[in-house]
């Protein structure tokens, strides 16, 4: 009899666990589909400033990003957080110069100062793939930590590989309800016929709310992208 009871009890326990797991998975899938559906849908009218994460990168990326920021109403996009790869010193320097010029224009009166951060890179050029696994995990952990601290409402990025971990984490934050970040990706002006790897990932995985391209051929190749002409 006792053996029979424990058998019944075990069956009950495993049934409950299975039920709980099924419910959880179903809820996550529903939430996932909900997020995919609402990604790319405009937000309601608002006048509140929104926290903005700006991803910088070496080469022309930072110059193009600052060019974009110069036409945005910075009062709406504040506080601003700038992130660059740990090995990229010039980008943050350029961003500081830009922010200083904004402070000067405002006559020294600024409500919130911008913040500047560095993020570990997943992989350096030529790094072995085995060590890359470790460094990628470290980079993801670091990116998660930074994203948890910032929880931006808007992410602006234009191509450097550093934006991918940040956008992936932002997507999970959407699914988990931690923060809804609108992701805007502007493909670099240097991309005329093909999207960059970052752009392609965000496009195919539908992770960017809006993806902008600067050359018409990209619009025909990637119909869900918005053609906006040259920014530079």
């Amino acid at each position, binding site marked *: 009899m006792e053996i029979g009871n424990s058998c019944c009890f075990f069956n009950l326990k495993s049934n409950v666990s299975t039920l709980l797991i099924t419910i959880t998975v179903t809820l996550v899938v529903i939430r996932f589909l909900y997020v995919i559906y609402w990604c790319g849908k*405009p*937000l*309601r*009218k*608002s*006048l509140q400033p*929104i926290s903005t994460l700006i991803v910088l990168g070496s*080469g*022309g990326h930072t*110059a*193009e990003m600052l*060019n*974009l920021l*110069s*036409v*945005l*109403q910075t009062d*709406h996009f504040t506080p601003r957080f700038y992130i660059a790869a740990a090995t990229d010193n010039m980008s943050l320097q350029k961003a500081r110069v830009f922010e200083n010029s904004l402070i000067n224009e405002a006559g020294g009166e600024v409500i919130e100062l911008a913040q500047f951060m560095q993020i570990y890179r997943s992989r350096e050029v030529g790094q072995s793939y085995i060590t890359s696994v470790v460094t990628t995990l470290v980079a993801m952990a670091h990116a998660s930590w930074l994203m948890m601290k910032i929880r931006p409402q*808007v992410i602006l990025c234009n191509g450097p590989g550093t934006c991918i971990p940040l956008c992936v984490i932002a997507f999970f934050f959407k699914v988990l309800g931690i923060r809804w970040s*609108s992701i*805007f990706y*502007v493909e*670099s*002006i*240097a*991309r*005329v*016929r*093909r999207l*960059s790897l970052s752009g392609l990932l965000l496009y195919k995985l539908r992770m960017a*709310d*809006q993806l*902008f391209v600067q*050359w018409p051929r990209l619009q025909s190749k990637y119909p869900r992208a*918005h053609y*906006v*002409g*040259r*920014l*530079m």
Partner: protein
Amino acid sequence: MGDTDERRKCNRTAFVTVGTTSFDTLVRAVDTREVKEVLSKKGYTHLLIQMGRGSYIPQKSTGEDGSLTVDYFTFSSSIADNLRSASLVISHAGSGSIFETLRLGKPLIVVVNEDLMDNHQSELAEELADRKHLFCARPQTLYQVIAAMSLESLIPYPPGDASPVAKLINRFLGFPDD
């Protein structure tokens, strides 16, 4: 004495820039006798080379013998002044260099670095060359491109405008149009 005064009056500099990269193939190509001769023939008096992280060091020349005056440097905090005082710019295919030069309205030859692994830069150079905003060359064809180029055929690059993107972003976020 008379000759130097003449040349000082009309200083036409060809400025070569590789940005923050290392592009020895281009510096070598520019440092050849044929390229220097064709530049001289085309009316340029000075050749200034910004060689970046490259290891090949070009030969300086005072140009006393009537040839090109050649000088070089590695980096400067801003090449804007060099671009402004140049009559011809020969640049690597970095988008920053390209647009900075086009914005100043300077004639530009873009040289694509074929040694680079992921050469997406050539897409931009070729597109802008197709639209006649600049000339495109490879280090090996630089001499021919300079010899054959006609600066009058270049069309000025219309300045870009980031406000369409700003408008779309503002609308999406529910901000009023400024």
